[in-house]
């Protein structure tokens, strides 16, 4: 969300701390905890691929790489049919292509670590939507007319058609010059737009020559809930909810999710 100077002033005054507040980095003794298994499992309906990345959590101040959980046994079962094994293609990464998925298909993911710990998750396939159009227009932030506005902002309107017969959940992932803006994804559901053409209006700081790509992921409810929880926990401070671990849909003590999504991508070159 872009802020110009005037908006910043308002925000500071709004929290009543414009003249007296200060921030600094402090040393805080935090508890440590046993590393937890983190599972990020995605089944992409659009290219029929499955990928699960299994890592371990670190202590908060630990700057080392996240450890990968290798040599796990990963299998996927479709519609209570036979299960097929997913090979480990890189350390901690288990992937396979050619898995055909249709809307409403049910999948059961089983993971067994080399130490015998079992984690399972269920997910059902959504009815994917496709991006209809993406339209950019220059955007002048409110109240900025009297200032020297050097930044370039664009209002981006992204439209897609929602499927009326089911509850739908979406995650929109933005990329600029093919770099994923990991903090700027947007979650949308169809509570107020069931069956309608959904218009998502958002604003990005983009410069001429940049390429903006938007990925529309139509996701299962568990995927949506997990990232919704992530959003809550990333909002910290006394004005936000008490933080907690996203629940995800895995049994056992693993943190993470098993998601199924359909993907629609749109690229835009800014002149």
């Amino acid at each position, binding site marked *: 969300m872009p802020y110009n100077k005037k908006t910043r002033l308002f925000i500071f005054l709004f929290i*009543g701390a414009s003249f007296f507040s200060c921030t600094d980095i402090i040393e*805080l003794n935090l*508890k440590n905890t046993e590393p937890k298994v983190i599972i990020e499992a995605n089944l992409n309906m659009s290219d029929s691929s499955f990928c699960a990345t299994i890592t371990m959590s670190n202590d908060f101040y630990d700057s080392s790489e996240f450890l990968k959980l290798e040599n796990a046994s990963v299998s996927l079962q479709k519609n209570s049919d036979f299960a097929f094994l997913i090979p480990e293609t890189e350390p901690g990464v288990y992937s396979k292509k050619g898995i055909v998925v249709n809307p409403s298909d049910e999948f059961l993911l089983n993971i067994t670590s080399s130490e015998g710990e079992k984690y399972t998750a269920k997910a059902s396939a959504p009815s994917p939507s496709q991006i209809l159009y993406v339209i950019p227009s220059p955007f002048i932030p409110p109240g900025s007319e009297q200032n020297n506005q050097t930044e370039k902002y664009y209002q981006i309107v992204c439209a897609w058609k929602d499927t009326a017969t089911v509850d739908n959940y979406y995650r929109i992932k933005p990329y600029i010059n093919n770099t994923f803006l990991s903090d700027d994804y947007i979650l949308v559901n169809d509570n107020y737009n069931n069956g309608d053409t959904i218009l998502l209006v958002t604003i990005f700081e983009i410069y001429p020559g940049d390429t903006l790509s938007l990925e529309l992921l139509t996701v299962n409810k568990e995927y949506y809930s997990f990232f919704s*929880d992530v959003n809550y926990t990333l909002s910290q401070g006394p004005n936000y909810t008490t933080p907690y671990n996203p629940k995800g849909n895995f049994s056992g003590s693993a*943190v993470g999710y098993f998601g199924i999504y359909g993907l629609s991508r749109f690229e835009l070159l800014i002149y």
Partner: protein
Amino acid sequence: MQLNLFSLLYLLIMPEFTISKTFFLFLLFFIIPLVLFSQNFSLTGYVSDINSGEELLFASITTNDNTKGTVSNEYGFYSLTLPKGKYKIIFSYSGYQKKEIEIELYKSFSLNVGLKQIDNEVEEVVVTGERSDKNVTGTEVGTIQIDLKESKLVPVIFGEQDIFKSMQLLPGISSGSDGNSGFFVRGGDSDQNLILLDEAPVYNASHLLGFFSVFNSDAIKDLKIYKGGVPAQYGGRIASVTDIRMKNGNLNRWETSGGIGLISSRLTVEGPVFKNKSSVIFSARRTYADLLVKAFKKEYTDLNLYFFDLNAKANIKFGNKNRLFLSGYWGRDIFGMDFIGFDWGNKTATIRLNHIFSASVFSNTTFIYSDYNYGFDAGFNNFNIALDAGIYDYNFKQDYNWYLKNNRTISFGWQSIYHRFKPMGFKIIQTADSLSEDKITETKIDEQKALESSFYFAEKHTFNNELSAEYGIRFNLFNNIGYAVEKTYNESGEVVDSVTHKNNEFYHHNFCFEPRINITYLINKTSSFKASYSKIGQFLHLLSNSTSGSPTDMWIPSSEKVLPEISNQFSFGYFRNFSDNNYELSFEGFYKLLSNQVDYKDGADAFGNPDIETELVFGKGRAYGLEFFLKRNYGNLNGWISYTLLKSERQFDEINFGLPFSARQDRTHDFSLVLTYKFNPQIISSVTWVYNTGDAVTFPAGKYQIDGQIINLYTERNGDRMPDYHRMDFGITFIFNKNKRFYNELNISAFNVYNRKNAYSITFKTDEQTGKTEAERLALFGIVPSVSWNFKF
């Protein structure tokens, strides 16, 4: 005595369905005969300030041998019943010259008494006067009456005198974080405090996101807070009751007072309409941060950033037996610029009639209106977003005081509150452009209505020179009222059934029976032991999805799914005065059990959700602690030391793996020191120092990565602590009153003298350059100097 206690015990343990029958038997056999066979006469009237005519609440009226006495009630009325004879009656009130009046009592008669303030010329000075021992001899437990003169000397941020900030320096009462006037009493949540302004509930007592309270000290006459042993006349909140009374207005002469500070000013005008019969008072306050910004920065002409308060009150006496009061409060916070706006505020109105039926029966009839609401709107390009919500109360209340004998006073009455809840709804208006047509997206959640009815009966009884008690019962009945669509949900929170209730149909009932008892045993003239038990139910619940609370928190009523919150509190205390009541010492302890506590579940979808009940979880809690209080009342150096040792826990099946966890306000140690030193009648300085254990919070114990994001890993709800909080404030007041008709003073103060960086929040983030995760502290206030000038003429 034994019969009455026996009756009370019987009431406490008997099945609920026979209560009304027993209650009437109680009246028939033990109270009415006392009246019928009484041979006494009554001395009745009001105790007031002789100069202003303001009634003095809880003033002491005793015979000179101190064997019989009473105190004026919350309206300044007293009734003392004595056998025929000659007496010397002593009227006294802290800070006032006591008055002795000789009377020969051969019939009941009325006597209004005016007391003179000591050192009236130096009004803001803590004066020496009648040395009260009410803290030892009174039946109240866990109750504190704030001395407004003391509170005006306590240094506060921005120099704005705030009685609420002073209150938070007392044992058992914890303040919110810096810049937060929310408070916590004996481990309770902030929404569990009932705040009454002239008997009207105030739902949000904060201005400017908590930097100020809504109470303009110039308009306030009295503040009393009940932390435990809450009298039966109060109900509806389970942690505390703060009863604030506005001034009535000077009955004798016109007065103007006010103050000019760095960011706010205030003005009060009061005086008689008809001398000694009718008076009015108007008081206003406004901050002007926005005006200052606009003055220095011309480009911010559209900035709105202020709050205002208006207090008004009028009263008129009709003969000796009737007095009518009209009072109101209107306050609002307004933030905004041309493209965004946010405002919230309270309105209250009270119409009150005091009527003296006879020498022994006093009645108070009150109609009260109260509302709290907020609104937000923002617009840019072709979008406009608006949301609003509120709660509106219409309240009728009838109270009686029946002075049976000099050692027995009965209070009873009833109250009925019609609540109207306007849940948060929002509207997004999209005007047509090249991409789309006009479109309005709106969530409109049906209003909810409820009727909260109560009946109470209480008796204050002095059994002998050593033992006295105040006991009572309160019945509450809470009805939900249609129109409403009552939904039934499955375990997933999906609607499986619904029942439509017609407009004004009573469709669900919650009942709560609340026994209360306070006992005082006077060990000797200077020390006493007290104990109390109280049960209180709460039918309104504040849903907050933030740890500190915000103006947009939502009030909801009890229902079939949301049961009333219940508190059972046991408390005890030892009270001792020294040096002719110059020093007050008390130790108090309490144990409180809480049930039907309400919270959002993790990740609740609260925004505009018509099925908000599916996002709630219900649990229990407990709080227990010890309180220590030592106060020096008189002399050039006075003040107090306050310490609280506290444990406050909550337990929900769905949170923290079902294990108990500390409530955020669980501050193990909470210490306050307040000192005032009078150099001479013109110069007074004050200093406060506070220390408390940091709030219980949830910090990360680890981290992990998902889709490019670093996410914190948590282990235990509120298992960590914010850094300990401590701070010293200093103030000095110079009083200029050479001309008696014009009193003025200059107050210079500094908040956070040694510039301690107390953490308002700690957030955890990843440094984009180094990739390291780190903790960032936000401290709202370093040292904040301020100056204000106050006047009165």
